[in-house]
């Protein structure tokens, strides 16, 4: 039972990270109709900015600021310099351009920061574990990650539903020509959403940096899972991204924890291990396929 709670917390933490990445991606996709493959690169830029800020100042808070700024500004730069010119083009152009940007970003980061993966330690106030239940100590850093995800979810909900910018974002997602016709500078709104998406990636980057390796190409690894999340949740919907992220996080974690063990009950050990590993790798895609069969637009699509 304790083990199950721990694995569920692991799922929650993974979901939290996926939500930080997916919420920005889903807004960009939903509002601008742009398939932004560079999204993972923003996450990497955030992690690198944070690591080098922390290495030079020693303060985790400065690291957070650097990650938000670095990734946010880079996202704005990408939007203004490249993506802006492709809104009216076919998806293929966007995919090609943003794929090229991934390669560009990877090389640029390795030229600026070097190939050696930088080290970022867990900040002292988040080190160690705390007892949540008798017999269950959970690392503080991961709890902080879950809390961050929850705060961002609340913040985004308030932003989207209770502010003027949020109103414009929702309006833009529904009918961008109409918003434009009403005299709103849609270009600026797009740039803003891109920057917001980038900053959220940066936040994911700085929170993940002490737990994961900061390396070139770390963004591409999470990108596909992030797309799975927004497809499951429904493109363009932040609520969908939240539900999708939690679902994918849970299925992945609990699948990894229990599928091999369940198979071992019925199959010989070696076959169970191999089959289990395969099933585990496929679990989130199976989930996506089931969701798409039942609800082709995702669980909570943005209203059209």
């Amino acid at each position, binding site marked *: 039972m304790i*083990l199950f709670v*721990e*694995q569920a917390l*692991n799922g929650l*933490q*993974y979901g939290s990270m996926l939500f930080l990445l997916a919420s920005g991606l889903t807004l960009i996709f939903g509002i601008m109709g742009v398939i932004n493959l560079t999204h993972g690169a923003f996450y990497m830029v955030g992690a690198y900015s944070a690591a080098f800020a922390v290495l030079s100042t020693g303060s985790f808070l400065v690291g957070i600021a650097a990650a938000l700024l670095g990734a946010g500004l880079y996202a704005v730069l990408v939007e203004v310099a490249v993506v802006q010119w492709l809104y009216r083009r076919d998806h293929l152009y966007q995919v090609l351009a943003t794929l090229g940007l991934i390669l560009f970003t990877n*090389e640029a980061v*390795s030229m600026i920061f070097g*190939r*050696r*993966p*930088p*080290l970022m*330690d*867990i900040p002292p106030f988040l080190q*160690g*574990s705390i007892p949540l239940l008798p017999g269950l*100590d959970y*690392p503080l*850093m*991961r709890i902080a990650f879950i809390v961050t995800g929850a705060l961002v979810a609340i913040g985004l909900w308030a932003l989207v539903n209770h502010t003027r910018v949020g109103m414009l974002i929702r309006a833009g997602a529904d009918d961008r020509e109409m918003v434009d016709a009403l005299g709103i500078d849609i270009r600026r709104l797009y740039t803003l959403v891109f920057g917001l998406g980038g900053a959220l990636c940066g936040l994911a980057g700085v929170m993940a940096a*002490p*737990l*994961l*390796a*900061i*390396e*070139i*190409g*770390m963004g591409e*690894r*999470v990108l596909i899972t992030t797309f799975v999340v927004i497809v499951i949740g429904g493109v363009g919907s932040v609520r969908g991204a939240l539900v999708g992220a939690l679902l994918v996080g849970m299925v992945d*974690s609990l699948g*990894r*924890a229990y599928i*091999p063990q369940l198979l071992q009950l019925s199959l010989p*050990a070696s076959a169970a*291990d*191999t089959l*289990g*590993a*395969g099933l*585990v*790798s496929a679990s989130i895609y199976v989930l996506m396929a089931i969701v798409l069969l039942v609800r082709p637009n995702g669980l909570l699509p943005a209203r059209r």
Partner: protein
Amino acid sequence: MSRSAFTRRMIVAGLASAAALPMAQSALAQAGASAPVTIGFITTLSTPAGYIGEDIRAGFQLALTDGKLGGVPVNLAIEDDALKPANAKQAADRLIQSGVKLFTGVNFSNVLAAVVPGVLESGGYYVSLNPGPSSFAGERCHRNYFVASYQNDAFHEAAGLSANRLGYKRVALLAPNYQAGRDALEGFKRTFKGEIVSEIYTKLDQTDFSVELARVRSLAPEAIYQFHPGGAGINFAKQYANAGLGKSIPMLIPAFSMDAHMVGATGDAADGIYASALWTPEATSPASKAFVEAFRKAYSRTPTMYAQQAYDTANLIGSALKAVNGDLGKQDEFRKALRAAQFTAVRGKFSFGPNQHPVQDYYLMKFEKRPSGEIVQTIVRKIAEDYGDAYAAQCKLN
């Protein structure tokens, strides 16, 4: 129709190669005394694993003096494979066509598998400076194929012996679910005498191991053996320490799961990890000390094991080039000189087994934090002496 086009193409190809033959031979003849020997050097210089290729190139070039290897002028034709077997194959074919006969540099087993057959079919030589996959070590061994690093399985077998020596009875194994991962665990199981509590396969691109770590804690083994190369290895070690497991359950790894670069990114989490290894920058032999000093002086960083292997390979090639005075046309002599391995290896003892894979000493090492805060890899004890590999008996050379 298609058949006649096919035969026509074959005739053209045949004519072309027939025409190229005398040219290649004359090129070989010229290579005799003064013309430099070109060494095809295909390695991984881009992608996240590019630092390995950089270290390999740096280590190899360090062995050159005034562009000469064993007193013979050499010319390195360096190509980046970007970790893609197809790229490497193309580069190799191009070099083979331009008459290159001697190849080395490849860094990954899957890339090696794409390069080696073509090189050997063209009558060239391949000397591996890192991977030693089982596929070329047994029945498919070849008289022109040498591995100067290690046979892949032997590393994991040495780890199994280390676990025996450390007195572990119950061990949990973790590796990514792909060929090298499964081979690693098979190698370990071949020599480990205790009980395997569980074999946990992770996803190849996995970055977070919290789920597996929770399972390890619940299984409570005496130790774990894990093989996760590159970024995944850094993640694993960091999260293992963060979950508080580092203190209660010791971790044993093959050395390439924690090279000098990775230690830098892992920090204190590397403290206390056991590794099965061939060499450490801390080794005290004069050859090793001289190498580490020269490398630090030339590149202002500590060499990884990849650099050391490349350096040893370069010196091995140098010893053979010297024996034939740079004339690769003297095939039997060149092969014989390579097989004799008359060079001073940085790692210590080195000789070739019957399948032209190394017979050498494996060590149990431990990552320890110095009072200065630096994490270094120190030798605990020699774990296997003059250790070959499990495939040598299947190889029918000579």
